[in-house]
């Protein structure tokens, strides 16, 4: 292959991605100058973050989590309430929203984290539903179904960031930083410990991995990033209501990481992009577009059951593809379902 040093390659890919995210894409968006494209791009980025944060729990640690949207909602509500009731700005509400979501996750994790497999899944389902019911019915705190209108948009230490490009850069910046953090968490010894829980938790326990504690940590961490995504959504849209965070939303996020490939961060990102962009691209199909979304999802799962990415880094996949093409010896090992 080319003269790249093996250690340089990931760096090059990351630089490429950063360039794409912060230079190419904004340039394209600015070129079209349609606020619709900005909106879809921002929404897709928020869901990339949500999918990536769920990836940590479900993909890497192998814990099926059916209530992720609730923590997204907790973050959004925390940001909205801090902003409207206490008049705090985005700079403060963003981290606080993440922290509050994390604290609540920690509290509910304490009694439930010794559960395993499907019992864990159904416990997260119940937690998600309970948080949703609180958002919907605790009218005194959350304004219930009336939702909350936010008076303050995106800003950084008082600078207004609500312009189109500024909003994009804010969202992209927060999401990129979170992705780096999530990437570090999952591709490290820590991530390997999580993988050991996924593959065989009894064995991991026997080897001295403190599984219950790790599960609690990873659950809390993932809720933190979901909360950050919630704060982004709340400040970006300016109005939130409980319906944005119901069970269907949890399932949507789960579907994203399955389509993208469990256990792979790029997979989560691609899955989120596919499931957010597809309904928009298919708008012209009118009433039939959601059937198409379902069919595409089914097709993805059927033909690529390990996901679009699987637990292979995007890099390795690309290398295999291109390398095989160059060397003409490729038999497509590890790609897709063959």
């Amino acid at each position: 292959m080319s003269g790249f040093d093996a250690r340089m390659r990931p760096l090059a890919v990351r630089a490429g991605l950063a360039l794409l995210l912060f230079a190419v894409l904004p340039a394209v968006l600015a070129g079209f100058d349609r606020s619709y494209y900005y909106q879809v791009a921002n929404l897709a980025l928020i869901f990339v973050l949500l999918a990536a944060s769920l990836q940590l729990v479900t993909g890497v640690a192998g814990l099926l989590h059916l209530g992720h949207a609730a923590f997204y909602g907790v973050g959004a509500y925390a940001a909205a309430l801090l902003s409207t009731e206490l008049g705090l700005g985005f700079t403060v509400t963003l981290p606080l929203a993440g922290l509050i979501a994390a604290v609540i996750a920690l509290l509910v994790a304490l009694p439930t984290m010794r559960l395993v497999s499907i019992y864990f899944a159904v416990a997260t389902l119940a937690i998600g539903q309970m948080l949703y019911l609180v958002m919907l019915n605790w009218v005194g705190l959350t304004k219930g179904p009336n939702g909350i209108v936010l008076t303050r948009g995106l800003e950084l230490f008082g600078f207004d960031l609500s312009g189109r490009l500024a909003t994009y850069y804010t969202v992209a910046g927060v999401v990129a930083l979170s992705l780096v953090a999530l990437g570090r968490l999952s591709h490290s010894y820590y991530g390997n410990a999580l993988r050991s829980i996924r593959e065989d938790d009894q064995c991991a326990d026997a080897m001295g991995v403190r599984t219950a504690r790790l599960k609690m940590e990873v659950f809390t961490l993932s809720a933190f990033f979901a909360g950050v995504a919630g704060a982004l959504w709340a400040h970006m849209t300016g109005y939130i209501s409980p319906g944005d965070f119901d069970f269907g939303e949890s399932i949507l996020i789960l579907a994203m990481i399955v389509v993208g490939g469990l256990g792979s961060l790029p997979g989560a990102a691609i899955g989120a992009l596919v499931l957010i962009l597809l309904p928009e691209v298919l708008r012209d199909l009118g009433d039939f577009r959601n059937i198409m979304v379902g069919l595409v999802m089914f097709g993805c799962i059927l033909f690529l059951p390990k996901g679009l990415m699987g637990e292979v880094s995007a890099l390795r996949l690309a290398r295999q593809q291109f390398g095989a093409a160059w060397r003409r010896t490729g038999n497509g090992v590890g790609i897709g379902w063959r």
Partner: protein
Amino acid sequence: MIDPYYLQQLAIGLSLGMTYALMAIGFTLIFGVLNVVNFAHGEVYTIGAFAGLVAITAFAPPFLAVLFLALAAGAAAGFSLERIAFRPFRRFTDEASLKSRAMRESTLLSSLAVSIVVREALEIVFGSEMQPLPFEYMINAPVQAGPVTLATGDLIIFGVAAAMLAGLQYMLKRTRIGLSIRAVSNNPLGARYVGINTDRTIVMTFVVGSTMGAAAGILVGLYYGAIFPAMGFIPGVKAFVAMVMGGLSSIPGAVISALILGVSESMATTFLASGWADMVAYGFLILTLVFFPSGLFGAGRERV
């Protein structure tokens, strides 16, 4: 003397729980054999209801004929569901795939994708609104039992659920196909080695489980007079919860948990605003899991 009000709420709770139980039975059976959640079970329930509805509006047949048509539709739905959403994933028989959780989660999501397609298709064909039903088919005529008001449907649903439960227990414990279902559920590879046709057994399980799902759909649909494409969603979630609370492997356990869920919802309505009733049901689930981490009747199962 107990306040008749509480008796009434208890009766309502039991009847509500019964409708969940009806669905939970088939759900648990299918889970047991493949060890994956079948998200499309709610749609099988809906298909059963719509099959009955179409039959009613087209030929106005007697009640039992409607029921059997719905059952047939359920069986067909179960068969095709297995073909479309589950069988393709059994082509991976290498050890890595069998052990991989990722593979198992994808099967779970394949049934979700199928359920989205089915629901959207039903919405396009019938519209998402509640379908009007001829009133003579509804099974909600009041029945007075002492201080408690019940409906004919309560009795019918109770009868059908009891029959289903008994029939299923008989089938699982006393017949050859039941034995193979249990074998496959216990150890698919082992079952294959001793010569059980696992594919056929799985298809059978889906057919039986989906028939029961469809029966639940048409009965509950006629009971509430509410048939619409999204009708399977909430009972599906409740059946899932009941199954896990009951300990996954035990069908009577799932039924009992479904009843507990129903009663806790109706009793909670007495003390809380009805919007919060589900909170009690889910709280109950969490408590159960804290004290019985593998469900109420899931003893003897390894916690992995």
